[in-house]
């Protein structure tokens, strides 16, 4: 077993997406010893994920090139937390990282909603297939349908097409009037309007249908067709891949484990922060999507604010606050215009699997009023993803909210758990009650 070496950082940043990169860079400007860790093999996060075939956008290249004073800790997954200390698992074993202040930039995941056939190989998230494709997933020549909701669908479709996919169509659940209203409001954010027009140009010839959603996916061992419902009725489309996502959900699990207060806008929690992005726990800041879905520009500004603040440079942080307010207004616009159609909540039938890890159907969850009771009786949410997929889906469906975080944050190796216990990373109630 590898002994964990405790290393100390003045500022430790968790998550190397746009927010985390900006935070690390800002904190390092003030001479702080900065560590930037991420579970993925390369920095960039989801939006700036490395593409094996295509060059990164300029902003991403610049952000990634400005890390010479930052210790980048790739393939580091946070498993547990104690006071001013994180236990991380790496391919080489467990490590303990101590910090003066912490910036959480854990980003967001896709909201994936259950419908008949959603467990078939060939059905992925929309950003999910985009991420897979950037890392070499064989998509050239495949017939792909992109569906769900939000501007991410266009970005995903553009990446898929650039990699040679035959994108049959993009199906947006929001109504045409909602999408047009959103497009009209974009005039106040010219950079974004230009981006949207650019995406549409790259998707020339690909149908974009509003008020339309996928009802079911069919196939024997893999996906072969989907059923789509829109204003003009229901139709079946033969396809090889369905890339479907209903927007984003903040990754608050680690913040929750650290005791940071959460708040709700709708059914999915985000981290509560003050104007300088301080969480309710002293010394812990949060930036980007986990403070509420706000997009790339908000994440970058917030990362800088949090990085300056974590290094004690509150003056530098304060100068960026007006920019933050502006980007957060854009976020409000997004959630308003891409609100989910209630019909999406009724797609899963009693036989549809909700918990994919433990194969628990919707019918098996009838009668349970909270996540804990459901888990104890059905194992729903007890599998490897620890309820990240089914828990968010059940909250969206109006069944019950997700339960709080417990260590380990991800399934960890036994050697890591042994270190967690030896170094007091596990709560007292984990001890002495084993049978």
């Amino acid at each position, binding site marked *: 077993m590898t002994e964990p070496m405790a290393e100390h950082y003045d500022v430790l940043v968790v998550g190397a997406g746009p927010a985390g990169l900006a935070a690390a860079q800002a904190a390092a400007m003030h001479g702080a010893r900065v560590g930037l860790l991420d*579970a993925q093999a390369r920095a960039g996060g989801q939006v700036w994920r490395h593409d094996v075939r295509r060059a990164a956008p300029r902003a991403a290249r610049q952000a990634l090139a400005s890390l010479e004073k930052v210790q980048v800790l790739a393939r580091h997954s946070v498993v547990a937390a104690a006071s001013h200390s994180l236990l991380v698992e790496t391919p080489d074993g467990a490590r303990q990282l101590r910090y003066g202040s912490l910036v959480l930039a854990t980003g967001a995941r896709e909201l*994936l909603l259950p419908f008949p056939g959603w467990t078939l190989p060939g059905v992925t*998230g929309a950003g999910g297939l985009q991420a897979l494709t950037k890392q070499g997933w064989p998509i050239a020549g495949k017939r792909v349908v992109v569906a769900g909701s939000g501007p991410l669908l266009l970005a995903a479709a553009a990446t898929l097409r650039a990699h040679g996919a035959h994108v049959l169509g993009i199906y947006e659940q929001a109504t045409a009037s909602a999408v047009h209203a959103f497009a009209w409001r974009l005039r106040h954010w010219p950079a974004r309007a230009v981006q949207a027009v650019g995406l549409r140009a790259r998707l020339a010839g690909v149908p974009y249908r509003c008020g339309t959603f996928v009802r079911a996916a069919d196939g024997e061992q893999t996906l072969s067709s989907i059923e789509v419902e829109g204003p003009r009725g229901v139709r079946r489309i033969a396809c090889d891949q369905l890339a479907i996502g209903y927007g984003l959900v903040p990754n608050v699990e680690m913040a929750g484990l650290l005791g940071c207060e959460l708040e709700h806008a709708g059914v999915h929690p985000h981290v509560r922060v003050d104007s300088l992005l301080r969480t309710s726990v002293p010394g812990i800041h949060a930036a980007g999507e986990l403070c509420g879905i706000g997009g790339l520009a908000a994440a970058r500004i917030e990362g800088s604010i949090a990085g300056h603040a974590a290094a004690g440079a509150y003056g530098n942080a304060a100068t960026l606050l007006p920019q933050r307010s502006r980007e957060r207004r854009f976020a409000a616009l997004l959630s308003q215009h891409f609100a989910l159609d209630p019909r999406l909540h009724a797609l899963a039938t009693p036989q549809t699997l909700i918990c994919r890890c433990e194969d628990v159907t919707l019918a098996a969850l009838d009668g349970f009023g909270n996540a804990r009771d459901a888990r104890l009786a059905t194992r729903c949410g007890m599998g*490897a993803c620890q309820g*990240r997929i089914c828990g968010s889906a059940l909250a969206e469906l109006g069944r019950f909210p997700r339960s709080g975080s417990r260590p380990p944050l991800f399934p960890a190796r036994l050697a890591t758990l042994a270190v967690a216990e030896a170094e007091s990373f596990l709560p007292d109630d984990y001890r002495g009650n084993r049978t």
Partner: protein
Amino acid sequence: MSTPIRITVNGQPVEVPVGSSVAAAVARVAAHSRRSVRGEPRAPLCGMGVCFECRVQVDGVAHVRSCMTPVSEGMQVRTDD
């Protein structure tokens, strides 16, 4: 473009570009990565390391998330872990 990486998936040789994920290599030769508790075939869903549907065995280590693992020369991958 640099030399491709060669690995095996269920004993079958696969070549993929440098920087590819194990998930991408598996998708070239296998329709699924694991079987669920009921025996259903499953393949990557989230693509970001959250859902664990892509897990496989890599060089004898079980339950590795293939979407988060870069390929390296000579790697031996098994599905239905």
